[in-house]
């Protein structure tokens, strides 16, 4: 069985965002594997451990993403692909085209991904890829089982949980709660350095720049108005609670 895991390197979620000249500043930022992708990697490794599979991780993004791919290799993935040629960068439409070209080179039975990235949070790329490859997909899984050529997934449908089945090949996306991702072991980290990590370019993938062009563009990036909170109520608790209820009702008019 061959498994492909889509992953992205993102800012740590505890990072503050700073914008300079309309761009998000990356200086001094701690990068991590997108937490949702981490579940996907962990799940792939567990399937490999139970079923004798091969796990390939792929990332489309800047060269710094190599560090995240090495972490995935240290966790237990077998091989990594990094599409860091800027000619391959665009929007979600572009990403799906690029990842489809990579996926087609591997004949994968199962593709795993996080259901969204914690940075742009658009949640489009994996599903677009399923469409591009004309394979079925199930998104936001909190549980996954592979039985022969069938998968059974528990999908988080906003409160409700759906039990969904599909035949391989299939693409599934991970939701929080799918598993508890492992930390790479020391042996894992040592082995990761020797595992193959291939950089691919537009030419390697046989893609034509004009056919993968972005369909959307970011016009500007800005920070929200700073929140001017900070009113701490005073007096004994009963008086504070009474004042709060009065304010919510009469001043803010958000209750009643």
């Amino acid at each position, binding site marked *: 069985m061959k498994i492909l895991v889509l992953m992205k390197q993102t800012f740590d*979620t*505890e*990072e503050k*965002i700073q914008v300079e000249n309309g761009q*998000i500043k990356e200086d001094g930022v701690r990068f991590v594997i997108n*937490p949702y992708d981490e579940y996907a990697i962990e799940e792939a490794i567990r399937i490999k451990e139970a079923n004798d599979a091969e796990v390939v991780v792929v990332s489309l993004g800047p060269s710094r993403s190599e560090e995240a791919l090495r972490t995935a290799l240290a966790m237990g993935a077998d091989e990594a692909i990094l599409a860091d040629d800027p000619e391959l960068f665009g*929007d*979600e*439409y572009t990403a799906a085209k690029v990842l489809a070209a990579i996926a087609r080179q591997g004949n994968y039975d199962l593709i795993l991904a996080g259901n969204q990235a*914690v*940075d742009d*949070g*658009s*949640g*489009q790329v994996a*599903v*677009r890829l*399923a*469409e591009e490859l004309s*394979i*079925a997909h199930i*998104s936001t899984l909190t549980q996954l089982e592979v039985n022969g050529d069938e998968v059974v997934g528990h999908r*988080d*449908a*906003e409160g*409700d*949980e*759906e*039990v*969904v089945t*599909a035949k391989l090949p299939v693409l599934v996306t991970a939701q*929080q*709660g799918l598993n508890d991702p492992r930390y790479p072991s020391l042996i894992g980290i040592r082995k990761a350095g020797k595992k193959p990590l291939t950089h691919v370019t537009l030419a390697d993938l046989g893609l034509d720049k004009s056919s993968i062009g972005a*369909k*959307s563009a*970011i*016009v500007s*990036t*800005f*920070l*929200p108005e700073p*929140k001017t*909170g*900070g*009113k*701490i*109520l005073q007096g004994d*608790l009963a008086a*504070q*609670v*009474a004042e*709060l*209820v009065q*304010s*919510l*009702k009469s001043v*803010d008019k*958000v*209750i*009643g």
Partner: protein
Amino acid sequence: MSRKVLVLADIRHGKLRNVTYEMLGAANHIAEGGEVLLLLLGHGVQDLAVGAGDAGADKVFVVDAPELEKYTPTAYRKAFMEAYRQFSPNVIFMSHSAIGKDLAPLVSQRLGAGQVSDAIQVEVDGAALFFTRPIYAGKAFTRVQVKSDVVVATIRPNNIAALADKAGKPGTVETLSVAFETQDLATMVKEIIQKASVGVDLTEAKIIVSGGRGVKSAEGFAPLKELAETLGAAVGASRGACDAGYCDYSMQIGQTGKVVTPDLYIACGISGAIQHLAGMSSSKVIVAINKDPEAPIFQVADYGIVGDLFDVVPMLTSELKKALA
């Protein structure tokens, strides 16, 4: 510039969710004399077309089939594409919730279209449409323009106004028939487990009562649930509470988890980690209850009460019961 706008109704448990009206509001804003179509997909959904004209729909298409009773991407895509072919819209709106999030990228890639996810604002500038959307769960925002012929956007609930007055549009209902084949059902929903923990839907709730590590146990959510019941609110949680096993991950609010923008957010025993603040600080009014006066949550709170949530929350519930009686 006049536009044809297709709005996919967001149907949950046999009812239209509010965001459907919000999308119709946005659609009327950008149609500029064009046409607004409301599309109903499901089984037994015909009656939901009643009142669509007043909500801003010129036309309603209904695809009613047993194959659409439960959401599956391929069957919904087939039904959607049939409506697309018959209406040929310039703009497609879906809700940024379970179905829209899943179906929109599928349709967008098939149409070779750009998509804006989780839009909170739509503006018209001549022939162009600009969307505002959060990134990093609301730590920053981008303005995005879609350059493809068809523009697809998923709209976040609670952010765009529905039409204030009855539109009095025809809302003419047309039924489309779609023949489903085996290959249209590439995935099968075997079972739906409704979780008892979720009362009011978090992403669309007007009021949210949320608990953090300070709740101390699963049982510790009891006073929060009572407060939520009094207010008709949904119950959420911080990552700390979920990681500690006090509640289900489906309740988590934050950069990992759900991003919410209710009118009122009551944070109980939540310290206010950056990743949590990202998921809730766009709420209109924030109340924080925490024992630690230095907790960062107070910096974004409109009202802070320094105290033990197990003292404050029951008092607040009984005070509210009096005020709302």
